[in-house]
C-alpha cells in the first residue's frame, strides 16, 4: 500500500493519516482530493446513494464535485470535491457534554446509514465532526469503505473518542473531557477505565465496551492476529454492535448539567431594569459598528451573545463553565445559528497540539475577532487570577482591534465575593487604575454607566 503524499503545499496539516485522500486549500476554498486507490469505495458511496442520503439528512458537510483536471492537488488524484466551509473549527476538548453526545450520536447514525448502503466507517474520530449552525455535521467524506463482513475497524476509536469521555463526564467529573487535549487519539481505554467508579462494572454494556475492551486491548497488544485472518462479523452482528453503542450513548446523562440548567435563567446580578439597560448598551454599541466576528468572553449561557447576534454576522460564545455552554447548546443553539458555543478558559486557552504542534491549532489561530466583548469578567481575571490590569489590556489588544469591557468596582457584590476579605491586597483595584492600564493600549470611544449599578461599560479601539 502506497502513501502518495507528493507535496505538502497547501495541504491541511492534520489531514495525513488516511491514504484515501486529504484536505487542501486553494484560493481560500477548501477541497478534498480522493486518491486513485480510493476510487472503488468512492464510486460505491456515490452510486449506492449513500452520499445523497447523508446530504439529504443534513448529516454531512455539503460538497460538490469539481473538475479533477483543473483542481487536482497532484497526480494521485481520482476526484476532487469542494467542501462548504466550517465557520469555526472546534475540537472535542472544547465541547460541552451535550455537544460530544450529539457528535457521538450522529457518528453512529451515519454508520447505520452507511450499512444500509453496503458501506462502513473506516474511522470514528471526534475530529470527523464539526458544529455548524448549532448542529453537528460529519466532515470526512472519505471515511467510508465497502462493508466486507469483518469487525468494525473504528470500534476502538469510537470508544476512546466518544464513549469513554462521555462516561467519564457522566460518572466522574466533566473536567475529564479535557484529557482529550493530551491524548490526540482519544482517551486511552486502559487509562480512562481506571478512573471509572465501581458502579460502572455493574452495567453489562459498560463492562463490555469499556472495561472488557480495555483488558482485551492490553492483553493482546503484542499479538497480531488480524494480518492472517479476519473473523467473520456479519451485517446483523455489526448492526447489533452499533445498536448497543447507540443505546448506551443515548442513555448517558450529565446530572449536574441538568440540575443547574435553569440556574442561569434565574440568576442575575442586578434588578431587571439594570439588566435590560446593560443589554440595551451592548446592542447600541454593536449596532453602530460593522462587526463580522465577535467573541463574547465569559458569555455564560449566551444572553448577551443573542443581543450581539442581532447586529453582527457571527458570535463566538465562550465560557469556562461547561454547564453554561451545555445550557446554550441544548436550548438555544438551533434557534441562534450565528452563535457558536465553546468551552474556553482565557487563562489557559487551547494550545496548538499534535504532530509538529500544528496538527490541532491553538484557538487564537483559528479565530480572529473584529471585537471582543468582556462583560462581568475583569474582576475574575484581576482579583481571582491575580492578573495585573496591564496584562489583561495587553492580551486583549493583541487579540482584537475593538473591545467592549465592563468594569466591576470593588464594592460590587460579585467583586466582593472574589476579594473575599482581602481588601488591602486589592486596594489597587480601582476604576482609575483600570482606565490607566487600558489607555496604554486602547483609545476610549465611550463609557456608559449602567443605571442602578456602579458598573461601567467601556468601548475601546486599539491605539
Amino acid at each position: 500500500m502506497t502513501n502518495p503524499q507528493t507535496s505538502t503545499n497547501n495541504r491541511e496539516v492534520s489531514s495525513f493519516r488516511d491514504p484515501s485522500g486529504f484536505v487542501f486549500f486553494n484560493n481560500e476554498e477548501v477541497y478534498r482530493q480522493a486518491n486513485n486507490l480510493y476510487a472503488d469505495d468512492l464510486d460505491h458511496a456515490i452510486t449506492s446513494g449513500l452520499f445523497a442520503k447523508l446530504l439529504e439528512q443534513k448529516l454531512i458537510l455539503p460538497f460538490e464535485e469539481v473538475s479533477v483536471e483543473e483542481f487536482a492537488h497532484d497526480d494521485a488524484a481520482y476526484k476532487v470535491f469542494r467542501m462548504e466551509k466550517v465557520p469555526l473549527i472546534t475540537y472535542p476538548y472544547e465541547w460541552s457534554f451535550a455537544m460530544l453526545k450529539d457528535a457521538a450520536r450522529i457518528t453512529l447514525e451515519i454508520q447505520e446509514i452507511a450499512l444500509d448502503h453496503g458501506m462502513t466507517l473506516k474511522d470514528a474520530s471526534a475530529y470527523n465532526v464539526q458544529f455548524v449552525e448549532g448542529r453537528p455535521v460529519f466532515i470526512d467524506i472519505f471515511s467510508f469503505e465497502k462493508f466486507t463482513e469483518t469487525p468494525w475497524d473504528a470500534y476502538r476509536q469510537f470508544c476512546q473518542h466518544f464513549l469513554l469521555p462521555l462516561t467519564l463526564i457522566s460518572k466522574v467529573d466533566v473536567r475529564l473531557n479535557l484529557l482529550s487535549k493530551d491524548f490526540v487519539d482519544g482517551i486511552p481505554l486502559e487509562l480512562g477505565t481506571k478512573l471509572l467508579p465501581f458502579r460502572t462494572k455493574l452495567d453489562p454494556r459498560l463492562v463490555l465496551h469499556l472495561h472488557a475492551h480495555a483488558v482485551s486491548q492490553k492483553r493482546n497488544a503484542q499479538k497480531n492476529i488480524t494480518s492472517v485472518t479476519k473473523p467473520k462479523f456479519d451485517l446483523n452482528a455489526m448492526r447489533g454492535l452499533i445498536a448497543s453503542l447507540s443505546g448506551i450513548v443515548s442513555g448517558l446523562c450529565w446530572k449536574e448539567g441538568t440540575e443547574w440548567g435553569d440556574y442561569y435563567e434565574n440568576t442575575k446580578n442586578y434588578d431587571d431594569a439594570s439588566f435590560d439597560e446593560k443589554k440595551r448598551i451592548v446592542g447600541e454599541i454593536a449596532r453602530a459598528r460593522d462587526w463580522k466576528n465577535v467573541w463574547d468572553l465569559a458569555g455564560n449561557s449566551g444572553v448577551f451573545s443573542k443581543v450581539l447576534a442581532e447586529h453582527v454576522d457571527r458570535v463566538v460564545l465562550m465560557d469556562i463553565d461547561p454547564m453554561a455552554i451545555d445550557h446554550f447548546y441544548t436550548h438555544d443553539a438551533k434557534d441562534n445559528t450565528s452563535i457558536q458555543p465553546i468551552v474556553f478558559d482565557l487563562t489557559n486557552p487551547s494550545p496548538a497540539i499534535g504532530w509538529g504542534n500544528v496538527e490541532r491549532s491553538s484557538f487564537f489561530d483559528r479565530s480572529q475577532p473584529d471585537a471582543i466583548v468582556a462583560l462581568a469578567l475583569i474582576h475574575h481575571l484581576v482579583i481571582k487570577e491575580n492578573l495585573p490590569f496591564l496584562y489583561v489590556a495587553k492580551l486583549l489588544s493583541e487579540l482584537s482591534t475593538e473591545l467592549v469591557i465592563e468594569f466591576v468596582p470593588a464594592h460590587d457584590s460579585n467583586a466582593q465575593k472574589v476579594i473575599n476579605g482581602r481588601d488591602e491586597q486589592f486596594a489597587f483595584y480601582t476604576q482609575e487604575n483600570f482606565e490607566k492600564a487600558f489607555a496604554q493600549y486602547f483609545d476610549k470611544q465611550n463609557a456608559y454607566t449602567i443605571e442602578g449599578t456602579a458598573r461601567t461599560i467601556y468601548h475601546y479601539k486599539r491605539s
Partner: protein
Amino acid sequence: MFMFLVLALTVLVLPHDAHAYLDPGTGSYLIQALLAGLFGGLYLVRVFWGNIKYFVSTKLLGKKQPSNDESSDIDKQ
C-alpha cells in the same frame, strides 16, 4: 503453478482491504469476534420484538387475540 500458489497464499495472508489505515487493535477485534453471535442475536430480537411478544402472549400464555375477536363480535350484533 508454483508462482500461482505463491500468489494465492499472498492474497490470503495480506489484509484484504487496503484502505483500512487505522489500527483497529487486536483486542478490539477479539471482543467483536467473540461476541458476534451475541450482537447478531440481540439485534434480531430487537427487530422481531413485535413478533416475539405476539408469539409469547398467544401461543405460550394462551391469551386471546384481542382486536380481531372484538370486531367480529360487534359485526355479529
